[in-house]
């Protein structure tokens, strides 16, 4: 693939860069493309030129969030791929010109959690929804008036240039097309990781996936690769039935078509008593309860991937827990970015997992709001936003 050509590479190092960014000034408002200034990277930081980015539902969740929980103005976007423009002090892992994928979940590779197989929650820089850089808390973005613009999830990829901490960056050396690398930055990795690392789906298992967005379909891809014999997709949108087959879904259930029958019973009938693994990929407490009721007593495992933002708790019958059902949750599907993303890139190149079918739309940066429309209307899986078009 082509590297971005820089007419005067030495010009920008150490200096602020003026570029375009898509800013969200108020909740649920269309993003506005404006000129901003991006400060040079400080210690441990890397300034990146974004090549392409994609819209993930978590962006939409925080785009909609009313103040005071929602923070504005913000540059959203956390699923992307870029090229290193310059690095700050102490950064040795990447250099100018390297292709990198930023990730919202840190991977210092040094703390107890990073070193353990059992956890992907880096304790050095724990996950948080923070408006600034992880180590300093300050912002590298200023608008044309010199006012601060907030970061999002330590990435902020809806900008021609952004600054990301090295702890949130993955160097890509595999010859994977950049747009496919972009997809590995969040949603697809989450789904594949959840199936293979958290649930550890084994050959012959039965799986039920609640919510057939990109994450749910990525779970299907992971489950199929692991040899699951039955992969049931549950979604209220009948259109999903058509595309779901491409990703490995063997049976489709629309809860609206089940009448009075609870979804747990429907799934139990299809799976001799309940699915071995159930995944909740939406972020609604009542769906989490449905997923839990659909898994098999004895050994059924429910994996929570959806982000529940209303604060509603998961409520399950205690007897069901004693009957052998378990609940596990995971941010980013158990993925440790720096080791697992390159692995997933290789799996794509070896044709073990598919990524192409997730890209349903592509737009130029100026049309970024179309990506929001498409996702909100349930028409897209992943809409790529190319910065240079």
């Amino acid at each position, binding site marked *: 693939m082509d590297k971005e050509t820089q007419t005067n590479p030495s010009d920008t190092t150490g200096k602020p860069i003026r570029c375009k960014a898509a800013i969200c000034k108020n909740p649920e408002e269309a993003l506005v493309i404006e000129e901003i200034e991006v400060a040079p990277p400080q210690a441990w930081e890397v300034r990146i030129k974004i090549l392409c980015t994609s819209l993930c539902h978590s962006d939409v969740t925080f785009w909609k969030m009313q103040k005071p929980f929602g923070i504005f103005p913000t540059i959203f976007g956390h699923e992307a791929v870029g090229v290193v423009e310059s690095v700050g002090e102490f950064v040795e892992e990447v250099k100018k010109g390297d292709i990198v994928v930023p990730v919202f979940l840190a991977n210092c590779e040094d703390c107890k959690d990073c070193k353990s197989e*059992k956890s992907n*929650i880096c304790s050095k820089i724990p996950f948080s929804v923070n408006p600034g850089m992880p180590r300093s808390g300050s912002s590298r973005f200023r608008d044309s008036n010199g006012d601060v613009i907030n970061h999002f999830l330590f990435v902020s990829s809806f900008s021609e240039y952004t600054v990301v901490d090295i702890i949130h960056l993955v160097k890509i050396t595999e010859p994977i097309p950049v747009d496919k690398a972009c997809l590995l930055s969040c949603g697809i990795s989450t789904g594949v990781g959840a199936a293979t690392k958290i649930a550890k789906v084994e050959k012959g298992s039965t799986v039920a996936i609640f919510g057939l967005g990109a994450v749910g379909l990525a779970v299907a891809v992971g489950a199929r690769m692991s040899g699951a014999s039955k992969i049931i997709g549950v979604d209220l949108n009948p259109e999903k039935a058509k595309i779901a087959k491409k990703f490995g879904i063997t049976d489709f259930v629309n809860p609206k078509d089940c009448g009075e029958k609870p979804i747990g019973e429907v799934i139990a009938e299809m799976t001799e008593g309940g699915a071995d693994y159930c995944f909740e990929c939406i972020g609604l407490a009542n769906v989490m309860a449905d997923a839990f009721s659909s898994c098999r007593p004895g*050994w059924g495992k429910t994996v929570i991937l959806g982000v*529940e933002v209303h604060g509603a708790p998961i*409520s399950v*019958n205690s007897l069901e827990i004693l009957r052998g*059902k378990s609940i*596990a949750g995971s941010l980013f599907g158990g993925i440790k970015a720096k080791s697992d993303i390159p692995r997933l890139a290789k799996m794509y190149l070896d044709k073990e997992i598919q990524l192409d079918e997730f890209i349903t739309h592509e737009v130029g940066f100026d049309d970024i709001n179309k990506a929001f429309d498409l996702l909100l209307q349930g028409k897209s899986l992943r809409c790529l936003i190319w910065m240079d078009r």
Partner: protein
Amino acid sequence: MKEGKEARGLSLSTISVQREREREREREREREREQPKGGRKPIQCRAAICRRPGEPLQIEEVEVAPPKAWEVRIKIICTSLCFSDVTFWKMKDPPAIFPRILGDEAVGVVESVGENVKELKEGDTVIPTLVTECQDCRDCNSKKSNKCSKFPFKISPSMPRDGTTCFTDSKGEVIYHFIHVSSFSEYTVVDVANLTKIDPSIPPNRACLIGCGISTGVGAAWKTANVEAGSSVAIFGLGAIGLAVAEGARLRGATKIIGVDLNPNKFEIGKKFGVTDFVNPSDCGNKPIHEVIAEMTDGGADYCFECVGLASVVSQAFASCRKGWGKTIVVGVDKPGSQLTFSSYEVLHFGKTIMGSMFGDIKPKTDIPILVKSYLDKELQLDEFVTHEVQFEDINKAFDLLLAEKSIRCVIWMDKQIPFPI
């Protein structure tokens, strides 16, 4: 018994087992003299019947039917009081039912077997269990589950296969069973799928403990949680179950075993079972328990066990387990219909897991012999669990002691002679 073994000297309890079995054989020969050959007759014996909720058990004469196909009639040597007995003794509404013979933790000797019973014969030492293992269904054949799907667990008032009962009182009225065991009786009838044959050399007042409480606790640590060496563990509720979890965690090499209990006396007792640190929530002031535990464990315990049976304590246990890999294991049983509530934010963002442990995920026929052997090899310690021993006539004392939190396990000897340890 071989001469050689006798010459080496046996503990008094083992000698009592031998004597017991001799006495049983003599009684058997008497019965055979009275009965025509070729058919088993009902047995008249004593049983402790619970006739009304919360009232002392009454020792009465009952008739115990002969075993039908797949059934085994056993003579109970000793039994112990488990909190599940107390729960259903107190309960007024279904699944409580009266009159009932309680008792789910016991050891006995096979008196006679019904048709189709191939794995057991007269004279075998057996432990009955509330959990069934048919060894034939998908769950029994899977390592991942101990929840037999052929005979799913329920608080059953009768025999598992045909729903009949085997006990009648002196007026000929039916007395109900208790979760397929009913050990508060000199004789009981149990389905072969609820029986495990064991090595008879384990003293009966240790063997009976394995019938429920010990298996549940040790199993929760070994099988459900799979505690590994170096782990930190927090146990909410230091009754027999919680202490058995501690014992199981200790044997696995857990380095920190925190016991949480409102009763300060539990710490001294807990130490005997491997508890390294004690937390009494009443002494924590305004500090939430999970913060206390987080400070003691580098952010949270690797494994938290709830051994009380309260949804609110499950929430505390969940909050106390470590981010990243913390597992919460629910062992205690809250009242039917109770809901467990978790923050989905914590489940997702902290990578925590919640699982339940029924009978410690123990598969009786496979795992109970392993526990027996572990005791005989002096690894698994059971002696400290037995804090009191009474005769059958004094069975109600066992209830008093447990309710007053004065006992861990009170063993009830069915025969007149309680052997005293040296």
